[in-house]
């Protein structure tokens, strides 16, 4: 038997490899660098790695090969397992920006009085002498940075994967570090550990469905590659039952990752229990990466089988929006409310996925559904990271105060921070002059031009419900008196420059994308279409 050496296009892939290399170096740093230096070395290493990868992504993006008719740019690399094309580099760009925000939030030490938001020693039991000793010695886990980098690596690979096996490996590489990060909170450790357990158990369960779906799809098509699957679907070879079951089960795995109903139940628990910097990073990163994978899988591999998955996505999109918006109304915890709002956003994004895929079917100047979703994900990520960064600042004697009662009257005590938070909420609600409005407009119009008007009507109704619960928080902060509730109220702790920078970038991006969305929309339009 002849073995042919595989060709690996390092010139295209190196931003991805930089991230994995930095993660591995980070593990070595843990082993060899003295404890006192680790924090500084790890943060600088992680931030530098992300910046280099971001520069590399821009470099790769500027000289993608133009293919055939000019709508798609890029190439299929590494023997057909990875595609570096316009959408891939767009996903890489926004993922790396949000990962950078994640690193800044991870490195924040001023809020906890000189230590990070992560457990001093995760192995020490809560409430024991060992834990107190770890905290008096000022220990902290700097392993979180390599874990973060592995997760970022998996996220970058996820939307670029062009066969089912790579997709599965990327799914696990992004999930496993996140399971661990969720369990590492410094305060409220029982909640944090419980969040990790729930996320892990349900995540492993859903990836069991995913891989069985992969096996069935492979049984149908005789190959793992997306283009071969597409070929098999179009020529209608093989057993249709295998295809339908496989498609359904793979969808379960992916819809779990984006938190779509009825697979959303982990979202509120994990978002609430995880350390807030992790929640911020995860809310933005996982959703972006998983939507990248969903778009490529449905459009490229199952593109010829639209009529099988589209009705399913109609139902799931409507259900997700309704569940997210209605359950967010009854929440009394800020992180949980934001989690349900992120479920509702998943529904709006799925509305965008249902839109028109081919630019040729649209009039000039209209965006395709891929471009609308790319833009929406950008606006969503900035607002989410910013909002969770604000949540880390609002504290009382027990650490972060996340219940609504503590937030009462915050607008009178700290008008600036409360105002910024209100601005993020307005953007998530989709009020004009914020980025969220343009994003919603984009996904609703593409869904309308594809004839999905029932979904769009449901989306508009859910947006109205969503405005209600966002505005309720704003009323709570600005128009209710904090002292009347009797209990302790939360105040804003002054953060270091790291968190401030994250919040400011989030606000600036949300404002700019709301007033002049043109450049980023053009960038998304330039991303073109998936290379098949």
């Amino acid at each position: 038997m002849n073995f042919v050496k595989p060709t690996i296009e390092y010139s295209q892939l190196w931003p991805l490899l930089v991230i994995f290399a930095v993660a591995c170096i980070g593990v070595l740093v843990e082993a060899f660098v003295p404890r006192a230096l680790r924090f500084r070395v790890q943060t600088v290493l992680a931030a530098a790695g992300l910046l280099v990868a971001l520069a590399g992504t821009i470099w790769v993006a500027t000289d993608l090969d133009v293919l055939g008719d000019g709508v798609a740019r890029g190439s299929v690399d590494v023997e057909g397992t990875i595609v570096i094309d316009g959408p891939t580099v767009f996903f890489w760009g926004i993922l790396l920006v949000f990962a950078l925000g994640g690193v800044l939030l991870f490195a924040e030490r001023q809020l906890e009085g000189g230590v990070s938001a992560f457990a001093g020693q995760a192995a020490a039991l809560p409430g024991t002498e060992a834990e107190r000793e770890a905290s008096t010695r000022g220990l902290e886990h700097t392993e979180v940075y390599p874990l973060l980098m592995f997760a970022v690596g998996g996220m970058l690979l996820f939307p670029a994967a062009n066969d089912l096996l790579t997709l599965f490996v990327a799914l696990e590489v992004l999930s496993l570090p996140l399971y661990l990060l969720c369990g590492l909170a410094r305060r409220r450790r029982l909640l944090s550990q419980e969040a990790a357990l729930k996320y892990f158990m349900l995540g492993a369960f859903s990836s069991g469905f995913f891989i069985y779906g992969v096996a069935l799809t492979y049984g149908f098509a005789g190959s793992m590659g997306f283009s071969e699957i597409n070929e098999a679907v179009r020529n209608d070879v093989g057993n249709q039952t295998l295809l339908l079951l496989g498609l359904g089960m793979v969808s379960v795995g992916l819809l779990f990752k984006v938190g779509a109903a009825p697979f959303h139940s982990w979202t509120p628990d994990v978002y609430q229990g995880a350390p807030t910097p992790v929640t911020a990073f995860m809310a933005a990163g996982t959703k972006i990466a998983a939507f990248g994978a969903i778009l490529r899988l449905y459009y490229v591999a199952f593109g010829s089988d639209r009529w099988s998955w589209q009705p399913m996505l109609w139902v799931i999109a409507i259900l997700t929006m309704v569940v997210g918006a209605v359950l967010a109304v009854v929440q009394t915890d800020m992180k949980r409310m934001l989690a349900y709002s992120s479920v509702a956003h998943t529904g709006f994004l799925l509305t965008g996925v249902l839109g028109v895929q081919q630019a040729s079917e649209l009039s000039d100047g209209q965006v395709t559904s891929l471009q609308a979703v790319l833009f929406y994900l950008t606006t969503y990520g900035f607002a989410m990271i910013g909002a969770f960064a604000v949540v880390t600042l609002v504290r009382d004697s027990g650490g972060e105060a996340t219940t609504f009662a503590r937030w009462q009257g915050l607008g009178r005590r700290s008008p600036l921070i409360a105002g910024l938070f209100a601005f993020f909420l307005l953007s998530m609600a989709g009020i004009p002059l914020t980025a969220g409005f343009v994003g919603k407009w984009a996904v609703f119009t593409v869904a309308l031009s594809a004839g999905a008007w029932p979904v769009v009507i449901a989306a508009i109704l859910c947006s109205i419900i969503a405005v209600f619960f966002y505005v309720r928080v704003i009323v709570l902060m600005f128009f209710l008196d904090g002292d009347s509730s009797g209990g302790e109220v939360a105040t804003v702790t002054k953060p270091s420059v790291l968190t401030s920078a994250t919040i400011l970038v989030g606000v600036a991006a949300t404002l700019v994308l709301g007033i002049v969305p043109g450049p980023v929309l053009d960038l998304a339009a330039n991303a073109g279409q998936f290379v098949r």
Partner: protein
Amino acid sequence: MNITAYIVLSGILFTIGCVGVLTRRNAIVVFMCVELMLNASNLALVAFSRQHGNLDGQVAAFFVMVVAAAEVVVGLAIIMTIFRTRRSASVDDASLLKY
């Protein structure tokens, strides 16, 4: 070669695993049931690989094994922490976060 028998067996194994995850209380047993689901997919992958006469499925089975091993590392660490904190590995006891 007729692979129907293998696919049916893998379907049965997958269902047993799935039902186990939904009904068992002990986190370790739930986790074992997830592993059973992964192994059911391995069987299906290898059987389909035989049917199609290419090696993709068999290679995938190796990857699934590696991923399962990585999942064990992470999963047992998380279950251990919970067990030491609560003196219980029951998934029903972890119920602070709800509604």
